[in-house]
Each structure stands twice: as structure tokens, then as C-alpha cells.
């Protein structure tokens, strides 16, 4: 009798097969885009030369371009995409707000405030060149703290204000307030500090040193592990704090873990690459449409893969393959993300408070 029932129900093997199929497809796309991102760029390099550059240890111009620039940049793009998307997914669930994302609610601004404190506030001896080794960790930690502080503030606000749009507006206010503080700090800082900070704000995917890339990879890996650990808690939080508590979740502990991983993910990216918009808010929605589920055991790996795909794609487009010029990657991610965000806003008009 039970066996018959199983076939009628939603948890049949078909669903499992479909999920596995989408996962395989996404994984394939990640690999393809990663390769394309290395192969394509402003300098045309023949595929055979690319392969030779990667697998032989010669020291020509092509080798330098591939190994010193394109490969780190592609890995950075992948990591940034994963980190921002995952932080967006977690924020949307914890705040139960479909419009939540690291850039929208001011988390990225908070991280940049942390960075500003380090570069502008502490010492005139810090220059981009001296920001190596331990310096990078200080920078990244400041960024985490800044991101975490804003998360906490938004959490306090959203426990009082339930309206999604009001929280968004408050998030924008918070961002504006933070940039004002940063501007004031810039005004009072000396020339060297200012230069270091301005260079940081222009940060993109391609400017990371090997050391910085290592710090980024380690931090983001930690964030992903925490996130995977939180999948059961995130599922419970979908129902809201009261229900989550009533089914046995320690809400305070869950929040602390999720806040930590979100701050690490969003903060690390902002520390080295500057604010990159709309990936964090848009990718989780694309994944939900794709998998048609609310289960974080599926959504988390899905978001990891899709975040990588979207960011690599954005990076490829921003290089305008075949041309000499390069677009800011922020412009590309915005153009991809904004239609998704608009779609979510329109859909939510009839079904507020959900995602």
C-alpha cells in the first residue's frame, strides 16, 4: 500500500532525476564558461597557445597573460559569483524578504565602511602595495565586521517593521548614510591614504594579487561550509521565527551562524573587488525558478553553481571578446540582474511577504 502511494506523490524518483539533470547542466556550464573566460579576452590568443601556456612551463607573453591575468581573474569571477549569490539567498530567507541582497540592504556599504576605516582611519603607512600578507586579513576582517554590523541593524529594523518596501528604503538610507561617513573620512585623510582608498573603490575582478586571491578563496570556502551546515536551519526559517522555534530550531543560534556566513561571503568579496551589484539578489530567484523548490538542500548547491555561471558569463561579456576595450563588470551584472528584480517586484504585488 505504501509503495503505491509513493508513486502518486511529489517525491517520486522523477523529481530527483530532474534535479540531478539540472545540477549536471549547471556544472557543465560552469566548466564551459570557465574555459571560455580563459580563452577569450582583449588580446586574441589561439586556443592551442592557451593550452600550451597552461600545461607547459615556458615564459612567453601569452603565458604571462594567461597565468598571471586571465586564470586568476576567472577564478576570482567564479568565487565572487558564488559568494554574492549565496549571501543573497541566505539574506532573502533570514529576512523573509525577496528583495534582500548584499548590495540592496547596504551590507556591501557596511563592508566598504570597514575597509575605509582600515585604509583611511588607521595608518598612513598602508598602501595598496603594503596590503599583503596580514594586511589582507585585516582588510577582510574589517569588511566582515562592517557587513555584520549592517546585517544586525537591518535585523533589528525588520523585527519592528514588517513591510518589505519600507525595509528596502531604510536599506538605501543606510547606504547613503554610510557613503556620507566615508566621504567625510576621505575629506580628513591625507593624500596617500586617499589614493589607496580610491584605488580600492575602483577594484574589479582583475586586480587581485595571488595573496589576496588566497584570502578570498579561504574566506569564501569557510562561508560556503557554514552555509551548507545551515541548510536545515534555513529551511525552518522559511516558516518564520515562531514556527521555526516551535519545530525545535534554536533561532538565536541559527541566526548567528547564518549572519556569520553571510557577512564572510559578502564582506570578503567587497573587501577585494568592491561592490558588485544585483548578482546577490537576482541569482537566488533564477535558481528558485529553475528548481521550483524552497528546499535549501537543493537551493544552496544550485545557487553556488548558478552564481558561478552568471558571474563568469558577465566577465566574458565585459571583456567584449575580440575588441580592445573592457566594460566595467558592474554594468554587465546590473543589466542581467535588474530584469530579474523587476520581475520579482511585479510578481510580488499580488503575493506580498513571500518569495
Amino acid at each position, binding site marked *: 500500500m*505504501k509503495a503505491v*502511494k*509513493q508513486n*502518486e*506523490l*511529489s*517525491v517520486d524518483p522523477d523529481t530527483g532525476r530532474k534535479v540531478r539533470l539540472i545540477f549536471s547542466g549547471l556544472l557543465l556550464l560552469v566548466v564551459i564558461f570557465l574555459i571560455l573566460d580563459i580563452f577569450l579576452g582583449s588580446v586574441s590568443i589561439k586556443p592551442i597557445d592557451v593550452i600550451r601556456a597552461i600545461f607547459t612551463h615556458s615564459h612567453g607573453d601569452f603565458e604571462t597573460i594567461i597565468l598571471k591575468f586571465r586564470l586568476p581573474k576567472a577564478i576570482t569571477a567564479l568565487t565572487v559569483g558564488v559568494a554574492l549569490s549565496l549571501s543573497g539567498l541566505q539574506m532573502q530567507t533570514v529576512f523573509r524578504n525577496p528583495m534582500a541582497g548584499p548590495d540592496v540592504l547596504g551590507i556591501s556599504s557596511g563592508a566598504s565602511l570597514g575597509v575605509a576605516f582600515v585604509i583611511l582611519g588607521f595608518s598612513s603607512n598602508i598602501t595598496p602595495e603594503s596590503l599583503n600578507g596580514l594586511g589582507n586579513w585585516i582588510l577582510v576582517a574589517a569588511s566582515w565586521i562592517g557587513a555584520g554590523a549592517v546585517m544586525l541593524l537591518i535585523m533589528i529594523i525588520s523585527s519592528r517593521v514588517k513591510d518589505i518596501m519600507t525595509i528596502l528604503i531604510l536599506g538605501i538610507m543606510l547606504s547613503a548614510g554610510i557613503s556620507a561617513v566615508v566621504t567625510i573620512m576621505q575629506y580628513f585623510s591625507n593624500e596617500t591614504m586617499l589614493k589607496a582608498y580610491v584605488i580600492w573603490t575602483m577594484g574589479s575582478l582583475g586586480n587581485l594579487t595571488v595573496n589576496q586571491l588566497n584570502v578570498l578563496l579561504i574566506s569564501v570556502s569557510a562561508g560556503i561550509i557554514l552555509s551548507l*551546515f545551515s*541548510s*536545515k536551519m534555513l*529551511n*525552518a526559517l*522559511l*516558516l*518564520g521565527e*515562531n*514556527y521555526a*522555534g*516551535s*519545530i*525545535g*530550531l*534554536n533561532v538565536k543560534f541559527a541566526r548567528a551562524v547564518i549572519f556569520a556566513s553571510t557577512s564572510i561571503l559578502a564582506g570578503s568579496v567587497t573587501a577585494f573587488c568592491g561592490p558588485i551589484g544585483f548578482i546577490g539578489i537576482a541569482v537566488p530567484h533564477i535558481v*528558485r525558478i529553475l*528548481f*521550483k*523548490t*524552497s*528546499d535549501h*538542500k537543493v537551493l544552496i548547491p544550485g545557487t553556488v553553481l548558478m552564481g558561478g555561471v552568471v558571474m563568469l558569463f558577465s566577465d566574458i561579456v565585459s571583456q567584449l571578446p575580440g575588441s580592445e576595450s573592457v566594460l566595467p563588470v558592474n554594468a554587465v551584472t546590473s543589466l542581467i540582474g535588474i530584469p530579474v528584480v523587476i520581475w520579482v517586484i511585479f510578481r510580488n504585488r499580488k*503575493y506580498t*511577504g*513571500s*518569495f
Partner: protein
Amino acid sequence: MKKNLKEILSLDSLKIGYVSGKNENILLPPLNASADRGELIAVIGRNGIGKSTLLRTLTGLQRLLGGEIFYSGKSIREFSRMELAQKVGYISTEIVKVNNMSVYDLVAMGRFPHTNWTGKIEKIDHEVILDAIEKTSMSSFCGKFISELSDGERQKAMIARILAQDTGIMVMDEPTAFLDVAGKYEILYLMNMLSRKNNKTIIYSTHDLQMAISQSDKIWLILDNKLIEGAPEDIMLSGAFDHLFNSSTVKFNSEDGTFSSTKDTLGNIFIEGEGSKRYWTEKAINRAGFKVSKEKRIPYIIVPSESDYSWQLVTETGILRFITVYELIASLRGTISGPI
């Protein structure tokens, strides 16, 4: 006092309320009550008296500010969150709105305290979930998204969720509040069945006093100065329901468990006839502000009998006939002003 082995929950001088800053805001005087296995208990009280706070305190979502709650003799303070979630399940008035969440997924949430840290649904969990879905007759909705359900269906799915949680006690805060009449009775029937057949103790708050009286095994009546518990009939006979109304214009009839307004009567009128037609005519007369008198005096009403299909109003000037109660009442109102 004799030790009751069936007792699953008892409140001992329980103080409930809110903590704001350093101040403890205690809502009610200490509460004493108990619940047995398999009982359906309605919590009744005026708006804002603290029904929700009491239910939230029972589920451990709010701290108790004094006294004790015992689950099968063990204090609630000794339970961890996870352990408590295996004793008591909860449905609040909050409507769960999550896109892309199927009924199965929602019910599977009930397995939270039983699964490992990854939340993996094992075969046994799967069977419990299917069983819960079947008991609430939601099998045909299993793969549907909860955002596509009607209010009543969603509430049944929520009940399936606490069934899957496999707790002895289910606490529900106004489970029928936003449902239509048919939905209300369906949910109440389900609650009744779960308490009878599955031996679940269900504690629910409601504003529907008549439904509570007719369907519950026990009532916890919360008044400003105390909590009164007992079978609905005991409380009715004690006249305690009258304390629910602090105005003098509404009165509870302990004879038939209905309410009536105590407004001044427009007059007395005699009704001749028997059966359901008489019953409903009396109701209409009462509503219109008249009282039914026992003395046969003109004018009086004759309700339709089998040989006669119309209501007759016998007055001094003659007999008026009406096809409907509506016309009868309209005529009474129009022709008679002041005491008859």
C-alpha cells in the same frame, strides 16, 4: 488530590506576560489548569486578555514569568528546544506564505526535531509524512504548492505538519479564524477526529463560543481575575460565561447556549403551533424585539400547520395571512408600535 495518569499537561500558578526591558508585564493572575490525553480543549476569553500569550508560553516561544508548566510531570524549564518540539506542536494565526513550497515540503518541516543535522528525510520520516497527509485528507494536494491552496486547505496542511511532528499535544491559535463556515466545521471535525482516534490533546483558542461549547471536551475560560476550567456544560450551568460580557446589553442563555440582547421588549405576543416552524418563528419574534408570552391574548400568531401553509396574525380587526416569516415580522413592526 488523586494523581491523574492520563494527565499530559498541567499549569501550576503559571504567570504569563511580556518582558520589556527590565519590566515584567504580567497579564493575568496565576493560572491553574490541566489537560488529559486525547482531550479537545477550547481556550475562551475576550480579545487581548492573553490567550495567544498563554498558548505561546505553552509552546515555549515565550518565557514563563512564574509558576510552572508540567509536561507529563516534567517542568518545561527542563526541556531543550528540540525536546519540547517533540512534546508540543504549534499553529499560530500567522499565515505561512512561501513560494515554491509543496504541501509535502511543508509537512516534512514537522520532522525537524526528528531528523539529523542535514535534515535528511529517511524512509520512516517519509512514511510519517505520508500518513499525516492522508489523515488530513490532503493526499491529492501533496505535490501542490502551498501558495496555490485555499485557506482551508492550507490550514489542513498546517495540521498535517504538526501531525508529522508527532507530538502528544497540539496548540492552535484560532485555527478557524479566517475560514468560511464550511471550512470551520471541516477543520473542527478534523481536530475532533484527531483527539478521538489518535489520542492527541488539542488546545485551541477561539471566539466562536457556540462552536466551542458544542465540540470541546473542556473549556479553559480566561476571565480577568481567574481561569475557570471544566466541561462546557459545567461552565454554562455555573453562569461563568456571563462574565465574558462586560456590557449589560448581551446576555448568555444557559438554557440553550445562545446569546440574546437584553434590550427593552416592544411587547408580548403569543404563538400557537408546534414544531420547527414554531421554533424559528419564536427566534424571529425575539429578534424583532418581542417576547413570547404564555397567555393567549389578541394579537397572537398561528404558525402554519399541515393543512394551512401561511402564518396567521390574529388581531382585533381580523386575521392577516403571510407566506413568509419576513412578511409577518414586517407587518408586526409596521402595525404595532408600542406595547401591545
